[in-house]
């Protein structure tokens, strides 16, 4: 069954950010980074910088590809829901990943 994908930003504004309550936010952020980048570091990097998923930083990947795959999952990759990451944060994450410089080789 195929479904058409449309961009939707309308819902995002009213939604609480992931882990948005006082007692449970991502800790130990000393650097000022965006919500999208924080989500990338806390979740995405655990596969995409561990060899489990492909490297996605520094490849100039189109933002729409990133948001689409995040919402649908792909092979080993889980699907991420509005309750995991709202549209605005996902869009921010996609922009961060898309525009990021290539990671330094060890």
């Amino acid at each position, binding site marked *: *069954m195929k*479904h*058409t*994908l*449309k961009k*939707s930003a309308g*819902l995002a504004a*009213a*939604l*609480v950010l992931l*882990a*948005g*309550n006082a*007692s*449970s*936010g*991502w*800790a*130990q952020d000393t650097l000022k980074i965006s919500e999208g980048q924080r989500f990338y570091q*806390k*979740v995405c990097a*655990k*596969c995409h910088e*561990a*060899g*489990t*998923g492909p490297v996605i930083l520094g490849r100039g990947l189109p933002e729409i590809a990133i948001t689409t795959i995040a*919402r*649908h*999952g*792909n*092979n*080993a*990759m*889980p*699907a*991420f*829901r*509005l*309750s*995991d990451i709202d549209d605005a944060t996902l869009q921010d994450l996609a922009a961060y990943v898309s525009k990021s410089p290539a990671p330094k080789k060890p």
Partner: protein
Amino acid sequence: MTKSKYLALPKGVSENRFDAAIKKFTAAVGADHVLTSAEHLAPYTKVMMAVETAKHHPSAVIMATSVEDVQAVLKVCNEYKIPVWTISTGRNFGYGSAAPVERGQIVLDLKKMNKIIHIDPELCTALVEPGVTYQMLYDYIEENKLPLMLSFPAPSAIAGPLGNTMDRGVGYTPYGEHFLMQCGMEVVMANGDVLRTGMGGVKGDKAWQVFKWGYGPTLDGMFTQSNYGICTKMGFWLMPKPPVFKPFEIQYENEADIGEIVELLRPLRIAQIIPNAVVIAGVLWEASTCNTRRSDYLTTPGHTPDAVLKQIQKDKHLGAWNVYAALYGSAEQVEVNWKIITETIKRSGKGTLITQEEAGDRQPFKYRAQLMSGVPNLQEFGLYNWRGGGGSMWFAPVSQARGGECEKQVKLAKTILNKHGLDYVGEFIVGWRDMHHVIDVLFDRTSEEETRRANACFNELLDEFEKEGYAVYRVNTAFQERVANSYGPVKRDVERKIKRALDPNGILSPGKSGIRI
């Protein structure tokens, strides 16, 4: 399936009637928290099971943010006879993920109820809401420098304690039997009543998270792997962080060694010399989690021949079986137990001991050590890359912790999997006296032919194991009805009677573990 503006409709509910229910849900929780578009439902439809995706399509998703939301949703469900499938973090990978057991059920998503209500660093207890993930708890513990350690399953960074415990999942530390460490639940019943188990019903009580049993029947167990209520808060015990943590591995050369390994480990485990849930992992599990793909070795379809398994073992410096365990405690305690272990291994004349110092940063040792010390990661998703294509169904028969039993199960499982062109990718998680024999039936879900084979394989595994007196402890949503039969008609009948009494309209996750009114 008739055409509808909804992705699916609940069984026996017309589109008009569902429209009316959606209106009421919207009035109850707000339009932003009611999802019906195919786009928004898409992430709830990714199943890894060998069945048609459409069989598990939800009709809508409601995101609750409070107990009052949950009560309001149930009121509408009762009025319109809408079945509701509840998820917490929805990360039950290989068991159905976030999709409902039956097409058309609405999903009640509790991920936004994500408060860490309480952590007591002296009594080492926690009380959390359903949406709290292990990563959030880990960050909280680190940020507040609490001397506590978590126990979790492999998808730790995105899964959470409430959902995992309610499905009776296990972890890898001395607190790895998660339901054993659970203490106190808050449960919303089908009629909206809020039940607190254990000491939770006593006015002014302070012992909810420290005394499990309360008074009269202890009810907590009946809410796990069931559909008798919706757990909205759960207490559990945390392990004090030990001064010394010493993870180690023992590699064994041959597949036939499994019996001896179990016989060797059981006394150490029962006597708590090794206090944690030891893992005995097969070569392909370990190869997958250090980023080995089948396509690195073979492009031909079918199962992977033993000669290739041996080659992988050699190339990746793995054993045919890889035992992971750890010691926890003061330096003196660890030293004494380490001496017992090394002498036991030496006496047995088999097995190569590897310490953390020797393993360094090498995978899979590194992520295994993280799992055994409560540091979240997602390394185990490498399993899904072994064959690729996103198909995964856990086949998890229980066994006694006896060498002969484990050997028999491995042979039987491998024969059946190979017959269907699939691989044995398995591990044993050693309980105190039992084994969770956990086998990942991995297949390429993008191939219809392979998906059909995987389905036939899973059925045959269930049938053949049942003939030998084995049953699984947990199963994906496509096979829950089938597995309920393994446990006999009397149990099913009792469960149905309880269901009818507590949920007369049968709105709560009908079909979960095969239970219906």
